[in-house]
């Protein structure tokens, strides 16, 4: 279980996260919904040890984020919103590099390629791939260390509907492998399609946390937030 308790993150005078608490059950797909600037990416940065919290407590599968961040990094993986690989290298060279620095096994290496359908483009320079293929390479790199938790930071932004559906289907498949997924998005329909449970945040605060089967109020809450933003 991932427990987030009363966390605060300040950037100078700006409070990016304000006393935020929620829990993610092991082996589930958890959606984190919020408009741009709600604090979704900040939470992911904190969970990956890229940004320290100002106050509060987080435990990831029983590990304290302040004391055991190295161990947490070993069992987790982030799929960043922006593509994070080397465009000048081929797909194979990118995967080789990220596999070696994480001591990935051959099985994990092969699985990452197969799940993301990259077999045909291994010798192609990453910068020459289509938008959807680049997204899949971005995800494949995150699978190399056989993570127990994967954090997806809006992975479908700016890609065509076909690739988007393929990515969403592959994420649903991770649940069958026993992987816990935290999926951030500002698309309600995506979250409803793949998640077991959803939390909505706004201005760094939790608005609601509900199981996806109880979504009667979820859509209402999210619509209210988007209307606020548009006003």
């Amino acid at each position, binding site marked *: 279980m991932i427990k987030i308790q009363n966390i605060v993150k300040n950037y100078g005078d700006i409070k990016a996260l304000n006393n935020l608490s929620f829990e993610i059950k092991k082996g589930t797909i958890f959606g984190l919904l919020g408009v741009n600037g709600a604090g979704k990416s900040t939470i992911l940065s904190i969970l990956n040890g890229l940004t320290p919290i100002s106050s509060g407590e987080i435990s990831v599968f029983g590990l304290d984020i302040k004391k055991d961040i*190295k161990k947490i990094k*070993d069992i987790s993986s*982030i799929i960043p919103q922006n593509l994070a690989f080397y465009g000048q290298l081929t797909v194979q060279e990118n995967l080789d590099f*990220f596999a*070696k620095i994480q001591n990935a096994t051959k099985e994990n290496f092969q699985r990452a390629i197969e799940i993301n359908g990259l077999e045909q483009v291994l010798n192609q320079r990453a910068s020459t791939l289509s938008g959807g293929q680049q997204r899949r390479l971005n995800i494949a790199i995150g699978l190399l260390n056989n993570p127990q938790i994967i954090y997806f930071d809006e992975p479908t932004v700016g890609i065509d509907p076909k690739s988007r559906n393929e990515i969403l289907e592959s994420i649903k498949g991770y649940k069958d492998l026993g992987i816990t997924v935290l999926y951030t998005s500002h698309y309600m329909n995506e979250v409803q399609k793949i998640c077991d449970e959803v939390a909505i945040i706004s201005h760094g605060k939790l608005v609601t946390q509900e199981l996806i089967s109880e979504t009667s109020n979820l859509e209402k809450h999210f619509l209210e937030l988007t209307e606020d933003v548009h006003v």
Partner: protein
Amino acid sequence: MFSAMVKKEFLLVLRDKKALMVLFIMPAIFILIISVAMRDVFTQNSVSFDIAIVNLDNSKITKELVKDMSKNQNFNITKKDSAQIFITIPKEYTKKNKKLGIEVKESLKSDEIELFKSKLLKEVVDLKLKIIANRLREFSDEAANAISSVSLEANNLFELKYNEEEETPNSTQQSVPSWIVFGMFFMITPISTIFINERKQNTLARLSSMNISIFSFIISKIVPYLFIAQIQAWIMLGVGMFIVPLFNTPALVLNGSVFAFAFLSFALSISTVGLASLIAVSASSAEQASTIGGISSILLGAIGGVMVPKFIMPQSMQTLANISPMSWGLDGFLNIFLKGGDIFMVLNESFMLLTFGAIGLGISMYILHVRMEKG
């Protein structure tokens, strides 16, 4: 893990062939241009004046004078139209102790005229001695022979002792080390760009989420450039030794130790990557890093004696030059090329360069750590 990071950096560097070409070709071209262009400025002995001579005296002795002057490398006998200086030997010059007529046709600087006068003086005094010897021969062969045996060659007249430490380089000895040093510092731009690209394309954050230490990250980035710097230094040495002489310019001779050259090159490359990584982690964009890198290279070069040789700078500027790592590198290379220096003769400069580089790398690691802590 570290070897994978270094391999990745090599691949990235080798894929950017245009940047690599610039790193090798730019300093090589500079060495050629500056060595050839500054050849005569650095070597006073080879200064030659285009002169035309009209010999109205036409005696045996003045004919010999013209012959001697045509053999002198300081004088180039030419036609009156193309001469810088026109010399007239008047009628009965030998018999009546007349003066030579000298007309400077081209605007020469006063120091050039003084130099011409000193070179001509030797020839004229030689001539006068021959005239005196001829007259004496009517009275005494012994006295005439004594006069004839007087040599005006400097080496026969006095024994010159001077401080060899202050020996000045020729144009090749000055330009090769200068552009080795400048060429290495020119790497600041590609190094800082590759650092900043890592930030821009989000791979730095991804690597950080994979337990990659800042130390491994920075060191792996600089390893390929340390190799490139060594190759660059040896190629520039080769240009000085084998290409420059093809342009009628003195060849570079590696008078000193090969190990000293290799060690100093390594120390210089450490100082370069130290400064480059410091600029890279401090700048917020590749454009900013290129600007800061370019300006700091030019400033350090100008202060350090790359653009203007230190030995012609006023004393105050020579003192100021000592703050530039380029000056330390340049002094070290001059020790090797001019004084036949061994590894002990470049230890001081190498130590300063290594320290400078280590401080740069240390500070850049600290800045990167603080930046990443802040998120």
